[in-house]
């Protein structure tokens, strides 16, 4: 065991961690937005909204993320005529993939709001869009915060898959350092520890929020 190797390559690996966090935040924002649209479409009574959204969610929930990354990577030259750079390809595939999971979380959140809320909003003269925007979604999202934080932790872990298209995020850099220094045990334990610390903080936050929500709702 020689933990010197970590100290020596610390700045290099930390740069990767910054990219990982950046990736996770962009995915979170984009995935949440697309997820809300999908969730609302999935609860819509219009069949031209309901069926495509449902098909989308089931399709992406049935695939491994790694395959979606390859798929976007191969699909983009066909659609746009040139290939995306690695960062953009990773971001697009993460958003497209995670949106399906967000959609299911948000749909459950919207369904947990009592029907009376929507009725009251409609009877006070709000349009359907205003009702969703000002009455249902604010309550639904608040209820869903613990689940969303858990999903954020999952996204943070999933960003490590950008590894496969050669993006130099944290795990890729650890891998590169290992290729040079050949100290697998120390380096992968270190990588695991770093992810563990970040994700544990996220999981603890989620648990706290869940407890607080339970207390407040009583």
């Amino acid at each position, binding site marked *: 065991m020689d933990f010197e190797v970590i100290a020596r390559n610390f700045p290099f690996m930390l740069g990767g961690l910054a990219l990982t966090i950046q990736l996770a935040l962009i995915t979170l924002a984009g995935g949440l937005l697309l997820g809300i649209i999908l969730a609302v479409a999935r609860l819509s009574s219009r069949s031209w909204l309901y069926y495509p959204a449902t098909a989308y969610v089931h399709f992406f929930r049935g695939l*491994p993320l790694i395959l979606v990354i*390859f798929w976007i990577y191969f699909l983009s030259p066909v659609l746009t005529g040139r290939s995306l750079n690695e960062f953009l390809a990773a971001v697009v595939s993460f958003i497209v993939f995670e949106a399906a999971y967000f959609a299911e979380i948000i749909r459950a959140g919207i369904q947990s709001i009592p029907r009376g809320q929507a009725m009251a909003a409609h009877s006070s003269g709000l349009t359907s869009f205003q009702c969703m925007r000002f009455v249902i979604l604010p309550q639904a999202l608040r209820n869903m915060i613990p689940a969303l934080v858990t999903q954020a932790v999952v996204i943070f872990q999933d960003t490590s898959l950008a590894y496969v298209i050669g993006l130099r995020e944290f795990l890729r850099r650890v891998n590169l350092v290992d290729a040079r220094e050949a100290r697998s045990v120390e380096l992968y334990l270190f990588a695991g520890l770093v992810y563990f610390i970040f994700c544990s903080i996220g999981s603890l936050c989620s648990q706290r929020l869940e407890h607080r929500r339970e207390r407040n709702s009583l």
Partner: protein
Amino acid sequence: MATPIRRHVSGRRLHHHSPVFAGLDHHHAPGNRHRHLQGAAVASDPIRSKHYVQVFRNTPFLVQLFFWYFAAPLLLPKPAQEWLYNHVPDYSYWAGVTALGTYTASRLAEQFRAGLLSIPRDQYRAAYSTGLTTFQTYRYVIVPYAFRIIIPPFTTEFLTCFKNSALTMTIGVMEITHTAYYVDSFTWHGLETTTAASLTYLFISGCVVLFMWFVEKRLHIPGMIARGR
């Protein structure tokens, strides 16, 4: 009155030493609903399944995979390492199996725990009062219930495991995704091959869901499981 007490003590031991039951102790400690499931000597046994679950859930699967593939062999003694490198040609496959197995076990443990906690306390009481030992209580009363309750989350976990298997391509296992990528490398038809791979995944997932739906329908206990679909 000595016998039931002894049974209780042995029950605690059981929770402590098996990965599934040990997680039961203090997750629900404040609730008091399952006091009989809480361990007595919590502090004397610091490394428990809860930590196992936490470690596996809070690190990316890819890191775990790399650990088993790159790092774990180095922790073995020299002769074992040499044997591994010389006589196990498909080591990447076994590393993948180990990683997937340990990871999925940690996730399933949580589902089992939830299933066991959802069994009404009266079931335990009734079983104990008929004179069953702790083992018999679990074997003949609790686990048959719990297993059926966890069929839906179990299906989800199985599909997750199935999808996670795609990640073993990063250590060189030739599974569906890797094959698609490999065919692309000499035909330049990546979009077609990945689409074919996607359809394969969707087809198998569909079969699994149908099969589990059938199992669930066959095994469901009237009045016990609220069936959503």
